[in-house]
């Protein structure tokens, strides 16, 4: 009798989590605000206080599809073991787990020039401790891009949320860079290429 009761309880719990995962998928995949992604407190409100567990299960489901749930701490540096309060303040996105091929990037509407300009701007800002004058970046881009494209591209990066500009024409890394780009790996790869080029 106890066995039956236990099984029933287990099935009930499973059904609850299945419902929560579906709800989390809807929340995370469909854009509901101006910016994509969902804040931790919103997930808590819709899924309950065990939302980190729900996201964990969803994440393991998404692994097979080469997707993952990404947590971005907006007001604080990335933390290894975040507290519930820190998670409530964080923003959650669904991002591609692996990299994409140049062919795929074309399908996404990005020309190779646009991507090269973006990586140049981002890595330059990283090297300048997260802030660099727009003029300096434009000078760097104009070496390889036609002048008329530089301004268009810079505005596109800002509009898409990769970069932000203040009233003093200083550029910063914005929310989309924090969500989509592995900055540490970018620096490592750039340095790796440098060392391999110098050694060869």
């Amino acid at each position: 009798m106890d066995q039956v009761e236990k099984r029933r309880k287990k099935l009930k719990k499973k059904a609850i989590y299945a419902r929560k995962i579906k709800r989390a998928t809807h929340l995370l995949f469909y854009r509901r605000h101006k910016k994509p992604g969902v804040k931790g407190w919103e997930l808590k409100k819709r899924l309950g206080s065990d939302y980190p567990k729900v996201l964990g299960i969803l994440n393991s489901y998404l692994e097979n599809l080469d997707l993952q749930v990404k947590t971005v701490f907006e007001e604080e540096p990335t933390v290894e073991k975040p507290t519930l309060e820190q998670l409530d303040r964080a923003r959650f996105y669904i991002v591609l787990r692996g990299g994409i091929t140049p062919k795929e990037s074309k399908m996404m509407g990005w020309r190779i020039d646009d991507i090269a300009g973006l990586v140049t701007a981002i890595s330059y800002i990283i090297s300048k401790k997260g802030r660099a004058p727009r003029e300096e970046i434009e000078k760097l881009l104009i070496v390889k891009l036609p002048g008329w494209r530089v301004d268009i591209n810079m505005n596109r990066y800002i509009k898409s949320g990769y970069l932000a500009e203040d009233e003093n024409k200083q550029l910063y890394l914005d929310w989309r860079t924090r969500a989509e780009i592995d900055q540490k790996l970018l620096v490592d790869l750039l340095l790796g290429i440098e060392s391999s080029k110098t050694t060869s």
Partner: protein
Amino acid sequence: MPSKRQKKKLGTEHLQRVIDLCKSVEDKGLDPFVVDVNDIIRIVREYFPEWESPEELCLDAEAVHELASLIKLQSDWVKHRSTSLYTDPFLLEEKIRKMSKVELATLFLKVWHPIIELEQISPNSLIEAIKYWQNLIPLNERWLKTAPSEIETGTATREELLKQRILAEKSFSIELEAFWEELKQKTGNKGKIRYWDFVGADTYEETINRAYMTSFLITYGYATLEVHRLEEEMFIKPYQKPVSFLGKKQLISVPVSVSVDEWTKWKRGEKN
């Protein structure tokens, strides 16, 4: 051997130069390690015994303060360099110049994990939209409905306008002055009256009207409110002459509920 005055002059110049140097490093974002901190400390220490006047000591303090800011910049610089994100900007700039567009883009694709997001209409929202469309009246019909209907012109008497409250019986200022006189009369020698005893009337409509007029009496400086929070009592005190507090005192708003319940309580005598 320079005289004491000459040494002071030289020291002041040195300190001013130290301050300017530290400030320029901070403002222009230069490498803070270009400044030799030990050398600056030596200069500050060398001239310190010469300072006597408050101005000289202030200059010395300013130099020490700027030096402390510079040391903080050096500390931040070291911290940033020790992080995994540090790359030498000059090295990086050179490397970017050397790399081709294809190389740069290929490298970026390795670290780029774009956000997956959908902006799609669901079957439910389609059904809602169809329902809305079906109930939506064509524009030409809607415009017809909103067109103003023609009304024949006629004349209105003063009494009719008074009834519709388009015209007031007396001008507002005269009405307010009369109300003030009534308040002064009712307070008599006591100098104050309970709020509800003054505002309360036989009908609720009249009570609202009196509360409205009272609020103007207080706002325009004809009277003031005395609030006893613990006893939950409120009194109105008339001034003998209107007082203006504009620009002299911080004005505060006191919300007073004049609901039907409150009015009924007052009528029953529960408010006394």
